[in-house]
């Protein structure tokens, strides 16, 4: 299988765990995987990306522009920032909840993500999810990454078995959060499946 998946968001949102689970699940299914992450100063509230590349001929650790099959976006403006990576027929899973940078608060710029989601809806195939609302229902914002992973899996664009991903989640999250994370994944999966069906004519 050849697949390029870009995960983007803001430092601290849990993008790294999502990319590791995808990479581990792809490996468990017998694929060769490479990935690359943003580490260091940018992690302090800056834009972060993880590039997950599945397949034998993915030499570069970074996905070339226009080649990502899927973007998993933890923040709407970050999806717009990375949109150039998405294939013409690629899909973006987008958390609509905006993370407001300090610069926006200081200048009263009023950034709330709406303009970004409108733009995305117009330009690319998207599955939107209100991460804040869903996470409130799940009990903590800490489940955002697994929720979005669930949506991506439900959309069918990951090319990986749901069970494989669930198995990797179980291995990686602490026992006391296991139930909640599985629940987050499954509710995401449902959103992903449903939204992808809605798109059928």
């Amino acid at each position, binding site marked *: 299988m050849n697949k390029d998946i870009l995960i983007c968001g803001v430092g601290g949102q849990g993008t790294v765990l999502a990319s590791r689970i995808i990479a581990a699940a792809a490996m468990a299914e017998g694929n060769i995987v490479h990935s690359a992450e943003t580490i260091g100063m940018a992690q302090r509230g800056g834009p972060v990306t993880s590039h997950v590349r599945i397949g034998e001929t993915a030499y570069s650790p970074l996905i070339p522009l226009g080649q990502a099959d899927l973007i998993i976006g933890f923040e709407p403006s970050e999806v717009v920032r990375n949109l150039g990576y998405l294939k013409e027929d690629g899909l973006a899973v987008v958390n609509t909840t905006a993370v407001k940078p300090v610069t*926006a608060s200081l200048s009263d*710029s009023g950034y709330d993500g709406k303009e970004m989601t409108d733009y995305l809806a117009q330009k690319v195939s998207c599955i939107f999810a209100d991460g804040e609302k869903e996470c409130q229902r799940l009990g903590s914002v800490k489940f955002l990454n697994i929720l979005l992973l669930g949506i991506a899996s439900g959309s069918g664009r990951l090319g990986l078995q749901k069970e494989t991903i669930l198995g990797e989640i179980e291995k990686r999250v602490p026992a006391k959060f296991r139930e909640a994370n599985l629940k987050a994944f499954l509710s995401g999966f449902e959103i992903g499946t449903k939204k992808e069906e809605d798109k059928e004519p």
Partner: protein
Amino acid sequence: MKEYVMGNGAIALGALKAGVNVACGYPGTPSSEIIETLAKYPHEGLHLEWSVNEKAALEVAAAASYAGARALVTMKQVGLNVASDPLMSLAYVGVEGGLVVVSADDPGPISSQTEQDTRRFADFARIPVFDPSSPEEAFEMIQDAFACSEKYKTPVIFRPTTRVCHGYASVEAQERYQPKAFAGFQKDAGRFVIFPRLSYKNHGLIEKRNVRIGEDFSSYRYNTIEGEASEKAVLASGISYMYAKEFLKDHPKIRLLRIATAYPFPEDFAKKALSGVKEVLCLEELSPYLEEQLLKLAGKHALSLKVCGKLTGHVPHMGENSADSIAAILQEFLGIDAPKGGRKITDLPSLPVRPPVLCAGCPHRASFYAVKRAMAGQKTYYCGDIGCYTLGNSMPLDMVDTCLCMGAGVTMAQGFSHVDGEGKAFAFIGDSTFFASGITGVVNAVFNEADITICILDNSTTAMTGHQPHPGTGINMMGHDAGKISIEKILQGIGLEKIVTVDPLKLDEAIEAVKECASVRGVKAIIFRSPCIAIERSGKTCSIKDSCINCKACIRQTGCPALSLSDGKVTIDASLCTGCGLCAQVCPVHAIGGEGDE
């Protein structure tokens, strides 16, 4: 079994496989995870340490190597500047057990002060350098580096770059590792005591030896030739090789050379690989090192060869290469007309800028704010240093006037105090940086009668690089409690008379402490002590009361990322807030409460 690890993890596993006996380093992005990975895998018999700085690390390793042990030293590229004193001399003396210095370069730069090229350091020190282009290669190549070091009795540099260090791939991990058996130190003053006579003799031997190593490298397994003989060829190294390979997979006839051993340059290999080639494009990051080697080669052998790269404007001098930039450069050089990658992006809305900021609840914010408030209206010099707290420069704090290199804040404040007796000079330095290179600066200040206030931002960890322990935190990398080294006692020992320790989150007390220290002459220190929010979670959050008048003073004065405006009203993001209470102490109408406050 195969494990999916970061490039730095691959380097660590390769070193374990090579039987490394001693591993030391100082944290620095992108190199920090090498020592951390070593700690995670079974490593019985391995001495592992976070050294106090890179110079100390290399000196510890040098002695271990003299005794025949295999030693690994890790650092980022600017760390090699600190370790350059022992490195230059060690290059003359040579080693017994394999000694490999990993110095991770950071093109971009992404998390560094400079875009220096470690391959130049290898050339400068006249020692071999290995340059991997993927985590898998790094795993193999670090083992080759140990073998090379032992074969030629020389320290060897291993130079990965950020994308290799932080890329992930699968490499072989073993259940257990066996450190190499070694003979122990054999006294030999003629060999291990550096004197001018010895340096003179060894200089000649080293130059002769390097010719042999260059010949050896001409058949090295990672110096490779792909594609067919053609008039135009491409030479790449490191991660740029992978980018080139990614593009050239659709053009398999193009000749692609890769040189993984920049110094000593594998001249025979290059000459053979370039026979018949009229024009060669060099793809590398940082400096045009290989490009210059080819120019030398062409001059030395009077080759009719056009060398393109950074010096001819084909490749940018600064910043990282990427799959896309390399594709564009290759298309132009080879005259390949391929569609530009990427979808057409039009009418892009203006994107919010996200400069890195101090975390919500970071005690450094409170420390900077206290100094800012205490010194309002006075002439000041704020000398910053290397660490998370460099971010104190961002608005609205704006509390870093200078930042140069590790430890420079303390000494630069002295420089300002000597040229301006009126202004008040402050140095801000973190706890780990203080131990790494701040202490000598304090001694210098006392001896030379500076008038400065040293603010030690003690958050009990090395935060920026991923929370490594240091001498002030007690537990070392062997898992032993070595006892915490007291910053206060060090300062007392140096002779400071005014040393105040304060919790920066108690704003009034912190402001008072600053005023008190700034008002007396001489060398004074304030230790702002409060743990990093990432190592000690409070579980508390602040909340906005109904009495909030929306004056936004909290946002404008602290710039805390947990505070924002929602529908024109100040709100606190409970998922980010740590309940530090700085905003509550800033609020003019006491409209912010802590958890359980009401």
